[in-house]
C-alpha cells in the first residue's frame, strides 16, 4: 500500500481561474521513501505539498483524489493527520509558536491532548535525539536560524509522524546550518524509516540521498524517476531545471561521457579519474591574470585598519579590517557566521562607526560625508532580508517612495526585470522577485557603490542567474559591488575579487580563481571534484573546458 497516492490532482487558485496551479498530477509515494520535489520558484511545488495535509490545503478549485495510507485524505481525522503528517515550512521564525524551547517541543503534544508523563518522555527523547539539551531552557528568540529550524523539526518529530513534508526548509539558513539540517533529515529517514517529501534549492545536499526526484514545471509533473534518470531527462529535454542540478551532474553532461553519472563530489572524483585513466592531462590550468593589491590606484572604497565594537564592554567585532575595492568590480567577502562581515558593510555605509581606523569612499573619509550626500549617488545597501525594505502596498509605490520620476521607475523596473510585478504586493513575490524589487528600490538612489548582504540567500538557481546578469550590467555602467555571502559557487562565477573574512579581519584577498584553488574546504564543488587533476578549475565550465581540451572531445 502506498503511503501517499495522488490521483489526477488538479487545482487552481480563485484569483487565477484559467491558470492551473496543479495540472493533473499523478504520484505515488511508497513508505520510507525519500522524495525530492524540484522545480522553479512558483511552479506549484508548495501548492502540491500543501495539498498533502488537509488543514494547509489552499482554497480554490480542486479535483482529483489524494489517498493517505489507503484512505481518502479528507476522511482521515484532523487529529490523526496532525500527528502522522509532519510539515516543516520555509520560514524558521514564524513557525515557532511559543517562547521557550521546551514548550515549543511540547506544543504539538499538548494539542493532541496527551498527559504530562507522555509529553515529558517524548520531549526528553526529542531533546536528546536532536542534541537540544544544551539550549533546552533558552528563549526561542535567542536561537540562531539553524537552531530554530532544527527545533521546528524536533517539535514535529515529537508527534511521531510517519511522513515528513519539508518545504524548502533550508532556504533561510547558511550552508553549514543547512547541511546540518539536511543530514538530520537524512538520519531520520534512515534510522526511523520516516517517509520524506522535500523541496529544496540546494540540490547538492539532497539529490544523491533521494530515492526519487519529481520535477514539476508550470503545474505539470514532467519527470518522476531516480536522480540519475532525472538528470539525463533534463539534459535531453534541455530543461531550464538542468542549471539547478548538482555540479557533478552538470559537468558529467558537459563532458559527454559514456560512464555512469556521478551525483556527489566523491563519485565525481572517481568518475574523472576513470575518464583520465591512462591519459596524463597536458593542460592542467586555466589562464588567469594575477591579482596585485598594490596596483589598485584610486579605489572606490578603502578600509584602513578599522576596529569596531557594538558596546564598550563587548568584544571587538572588527579587528583591524583593511582592504581596497577596485572601481567597477564585484568584490565578495566570504566567511563564517558572526565574524563581522555584515558589520564591515555597515561600517562602509557609516552605520557602524569604527573607533579606530578609517573608511574612505572615493578617497574621502566616510564620516566627512553628509548623510544626504553619502546616500544620494554614492552608497546604498541591500539588506539580508529584502522584505525589510518594503513598506508600501505595491512594488510601484515602493519605487515611488524614493521620490523617483515615472521614467526613472520605468527604467529601473526594466533593469531589474520587475515591470510585470509593479502592481503586485511586495509580500506576494517570490524570494528572487523580492530581491530584485528591493534592488530596484535602492538603485533609485543612483548608488556608485552597492553593498549587498547575502544577496543569494533563499533564491533558486534561475533567479541567481538573473540576479547575476543584473549585477554584471550594473558593473558595466560603472557601479562597484561589494557583497557579503556564503555562496562560494556564486562568488567563483561572478566576483572579480574574493576576500576571506575570519575573526574580525580579512585573511586573504585574491581573484576567485586563485582564491578558491588554494582552499580545500571552502571552495566550489567543481574545484573539490577536479583538485587531483587540475590546478585551478573552479567553475563547472572550467572543468568541462579542461576535460574537453585533454580528452579531445
Amino acid at each position, binding site marked *: 500500500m502506498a503511503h501517499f497516492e495522488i490521483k489526477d490532482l488538479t487545482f487552481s487558485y480563485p484569483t487565477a481561474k484559467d491558470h492551473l496551479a496543479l495540472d493533473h498530477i499523478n504520484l505515488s509515494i511508497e513508505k520510507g521513501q525519500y522524495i525530492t520535489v524540484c522545480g522553479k520558484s512558483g511552479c506549484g511545488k508548495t501548492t502540491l505539498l500543501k495539498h498533502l*495535509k488537509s*488543514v*494547509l490545503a489552499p482554497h480554490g478549485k480542486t479535483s482529483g483524489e489524494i489517498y493517505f495510507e489507503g484512505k481518502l485524505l479528507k476522511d482521515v*481525522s*484532523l*487529529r490523526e493527520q*496532525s*500527528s502522522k503528517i509532519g510539515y516543516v*515550512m520555509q*520560514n524558521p*521564525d*514564524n*513557525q*515557532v*509558536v*511559543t*517562547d*521557550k524551547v521546551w*514548550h515549543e517541543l*511540547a*506544543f*504539538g*503534544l*499538548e*494539542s*493532541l*491532548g*496527551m*498527559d*504530562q508523563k507522555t*509529553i515529558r518522555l517524548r*520531549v526528553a527523547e526529542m531533546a536528546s535525539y536532536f542534541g537540544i539539551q544544551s539550549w533546552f531552557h533558552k*528563549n*526561542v*528568540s535567542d536561537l540562531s536560524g539553524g537552531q530554530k529550524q532544527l527545533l*521546528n523539526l524536533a517539535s*514535529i518529530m515529537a*508527534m511521531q509522524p510517519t511522513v515528513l513534508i519539508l518545504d524548502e526548509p533550508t532556504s533561510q539558513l547558511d550552508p553549514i546550518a543547512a547541511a546540518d539540517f539536511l543530514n538530520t533529515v537524512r538520519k531520520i529517514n534512515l534510522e526511523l524509516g520516516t517517509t520524506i517529501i522535500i523541496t529544496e534549492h540546494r540540490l547538492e545536499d539532497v539529490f544523491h540521498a533521494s530515492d526519487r526526484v519529481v520535477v514539476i514545471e508550470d503545474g505539470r509533473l514532467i519527470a518522476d524517476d531516480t536522480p540519475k534518470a532525472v538528470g539525463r531527462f533534463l539534459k535531453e529535454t534541455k530543461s531550464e531545471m538542468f542549471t539547478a542540478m548538482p555540479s557533478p551532474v552538470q559537468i558529467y553532461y558537459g563532458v559527454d561521457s559514456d560512464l555512469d553519472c556521478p551525483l556527489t563530489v566523491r563519485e565525481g572524483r572517481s568518475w574523472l579519474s576513470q575518464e583520465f585513466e591512462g591519459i596524463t592531462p597536458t593542460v592542467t590550468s586555466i589562464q588567469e591574470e594575477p591579482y596585485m593589491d598594490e596596483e589598485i590606484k584610486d579605489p572606490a572604497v578603502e578600509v584602513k585598519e578599522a576596529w569596531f565594537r557594538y558596546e564598550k564592554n563587548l568584544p571587538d567585532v572588527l579587528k583591524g579590517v583593511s582592504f581596497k575595492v577596485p572601481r567597477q568590480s564585484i568584490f565578495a567577502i566570504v566567511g563564517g557566521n558572526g565574524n563581522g562581515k555584515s558589520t564591515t558593510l*555597515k561600517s562602509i*555605509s557609516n*552605520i557602524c562607526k569604527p573607533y579606530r581606523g578609517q573608511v574612505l569612499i572615493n578617497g574621502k573619509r566616510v564620516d566627512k560625508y553628509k*548623510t*544626504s550626500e553619502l*546616500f*544620494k549617488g554614492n*552608497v*546604498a*545597501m541591500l*539588506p539580508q532580508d529584502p*522584505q*525589510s*525594505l*518594503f*513598506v*508600501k502596498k505595491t512594488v510601484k509605490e515602493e519605487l515611488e517612495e*524614493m521620490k523617483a520620476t515615472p521614467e526613472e521607475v520605468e527604467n529601473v523596473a526594466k533593469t531589474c526585470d520587475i515591470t510585470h510585478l509593479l502592481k503586485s504586493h511586495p*509580500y506576494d513575490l517570490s524570494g528572487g522577485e523580492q530581491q530584485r524589487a528591493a534592488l530596484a*528600490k535602492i538603485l533609485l*538612489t543612483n548608488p556608485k557603490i552597492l*553593498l549587498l548582504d547575502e544577496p543569494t540567500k533563499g533564491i533558486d538557481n534561475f533567479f541567481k542567474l538573473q540576479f547575476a546578469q543584473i549585477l554584471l550590467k550594473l558593473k558595466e555602467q560603472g557601479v562597484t559591488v561589494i557583497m557579503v555571502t556564503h555562496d562560494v559557487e556564486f562568488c567563483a562565477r561572478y566576483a572579480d575579487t574574493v576576500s576571506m573574512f575570519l575573526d574580525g579581519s580579512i585573511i586573504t584577498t585574491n581573484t576567485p580563481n586563485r582564491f578558491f584553488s588554494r582552499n580545500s574546504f571552502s571552495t566550489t564543488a567543481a574545484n573539490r571534484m577536479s583538485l587531483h587533476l587540475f590546478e585551478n578549475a573552479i567553475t563547472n565550465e572550467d572543468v568541462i573546458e579542461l576535460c574537453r581540451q585533454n580528452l579531445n572531445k
Partner: protein
Amino acid sequence: MDRVDTFSTYNPILNFAYFIGAIGLGMIFMHPLFLVVNLVGAFAYALTQDPKKVKKLMPLVVIMFTLITLINPLLNTNGKTVLFTWLHGRPYTLESMCWGMVTGSMFAAIIIWFAAYNHVMTSDKFVYLFGKVVPSISLVLTMILRLIPNFQKKANQIMAARASIGMTEKNMENVSAVFSALTGWALEGGIVTADSMRARGYGSGNRTTFSIYRFDKRDVAMLVAMFVLISGCVVCALMGGAEVTFVPDIQTAPITNMATALGIICYGLFLLIPIVLNTVEALRWHILRSRI
C-alpha cells in the same frame, strides 16, 4: 544567571507565594522593628542575586525615601513636637516626619522586593501559574512573550535597512512607513504561525498543558513552613503586636510583648527563607567538596 539561587529552583507556586507574603506583610507592618527586618531581608536577598542591579536601584530608593520623609509633614501637620512653622504658622512636626520615614522605607523595601521578584519569577513561571487558573490565557501569554522580542527585532531591522539607503529622518512619514511595514509583516507572519499551529493539531480536540515544573517533597515541606510562619505573622498582627501610632505622639508595641516577639521571629524567619536556603546549599557544597 551567574549565581545559583536555590530558592528559585523551587516550584513557581512557592516562589510566587513567598513574594506575595513578603510584599503583602511588608505593607501591613509599619512597626519600626518590623520595618528594619523587612529592609534587611529585602536587601540581603536582592544583593545575593544581583548586586549590580541593587546598585542601579539605589538612587531611586534613596530619592524616594527622602522625598516621602520630607513631604509627609507638609501634608500632615499633626504631631506634638513642632520642628518649625511655615506658611503662616503651618507646623512641620517630628512625628509626621517619622511617619514619612516609615512609609518611605516601606516603599523602598517594596521596590527591592520587586527587583528580587523579577529575578526569580521569569515569564515562563508566571505563565505556568496563570495557566493553571485560566488555561486559554496561558497560551496567549506565551505567544505574546514570543512576539514582543520578534517585533523589536524586526523594527530594528526595518530601520537599519532604511538607514542604509539614507532614510534616517525621524519624521511622521518615515515613522508611519516603518509602522505600516511592521503591521504588514506581523499579519503575514501571523498566517504562517496559525498554519503551523493547526498543522500541529491545534484545535483538533481537547488540549493539555505541559510544564517542566514539578511539585516535590521539598516543595511540600517548604509550603508548610511558609504557611506556619505567615500564620505566626498574622496572629501577631491580629493581637496588635505590630501596632504603632505616630500622631499625636509616637507609640510602638514593645518587643517584650509576647505577640510582638512572635511576630518579629516569624517575620524574620519567613523573609530569610531564600538566604538560609542559599547558605545551607553553599555549606553543603563546601562540605561535599572538602570530602573529595
